[in-house]
């Protein structure tokens, strides 16, 4: 049985796998601290979302925008503290792949909503259509 090894090659420390954390000298304690910060921030943002949804503190029509802003902030927290995506040079590949993913997601969601809103706007009301078919 050959043992499976994965000894890092020379200079491998300059590339990071996605989600990989560099623990450095302070080790595990530092890592736990990072996850704790992430947990507290994420829980706070979640609580804020649930609170502002019904508090009436935010002007009614602006509530969806506020919720989206809080959700995007929380996704950022998850990416930084749980998935360890940073702007480090050794993280460039991971961040670029993420940026491409975000671009496609934005195009799909934004584009669908835009097109469908346009179609709805240009369509006759359902009652009129029924009349014409009669």
């Amino acid at each position, binding site marked *: 049985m050959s*043992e*499976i*090894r*994965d000894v*890092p*090659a*020379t*200079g*491998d*420390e*300059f*590339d*990071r*796998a*996605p*989600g*990989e*954390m560099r*623990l450095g000298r302070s*080790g*595990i304690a530092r*890592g*736990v601290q990072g*996850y704790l910060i*992430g*947990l507290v921030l*994420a*829980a706070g943002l*979640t609580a804020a*979302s*649930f609170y502002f*949804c*019904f508090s009436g503190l935010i002007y009614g029509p602006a*509530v*969806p925008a506020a*919720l*989206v802003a*809080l*959700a995007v902030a*929380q*996704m950022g927290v*998850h990416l930084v503290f*749980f*998935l360890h995506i940073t702007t480090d*040079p*050794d993280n460039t*590949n*991971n961040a670029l*792949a*993420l940026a*491409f*993913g975000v671009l*496609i*997601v934005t195009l*799909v*969601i934004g*584009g*669908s*909503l835009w097109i*469908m809103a346009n179609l709805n706007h240009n369509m006759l009301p359902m009652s009129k259509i029924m009349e014409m078919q009669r």
Partner: protein
Amino acid sequence: MTAEHAIDPNGIGEMGPKGVAATGRGAGGPASKRVYVGYGFWIFILSDMVMFSAFFAAYAVLAGATAGGPSGRQLFDLNNVAWETACLLLSSFACGLASLAAAGRNALWFHVAMAATFTLGAAFLGFEIKEFAGLAAAGDGPQRSAFLSAFFTLVGCHGLHITAGLLWLLTMMAQVVAKGFRADILRRIHCFVLFWHALDIVWVAIFTVVYLMGKAP
């Protein structure tokens, strides 16, 4: 400050910051398996996000198409959603601790953290099944309206991912028991951790777009 630093201060070229030929950038040879396995799985996760985005777009377009049936405002129970959210966030946290335990090669803490991850993930799934069963029993299943079809597709797809993740989690615990923290097992654990954190990110979008926006006055 060496000459290399002056030319390439951030070490993004072929040479790393110490002037050693860096792997994965041409001169130093290919990146190690640890790096490209993780990167490949990252690409899979991003493509999964693109798939979810299509379901989100469908839901957003169809959210108002209730066909005379109940809307989200009448159907959703935010208490249930809050419990689900708490379970999944804590599960994600426990999963992070498991990855630290794996990095420290501590089998006991790894199993404790993974068991916590599993319990919380299973609790999330329990809340979701309770909600789905209640809706179906009241005749508000996916066949009721376009809105409910889109709802069950989007949220159910996330639930299926969680189910698959739970099975994967148990597999990883069994593999650590049977094979220990071998390099290939560690890579699999790493991919699982990525998957689990990504599912929590999708849930953030779901509880915001589906539940809170559906319920907002």
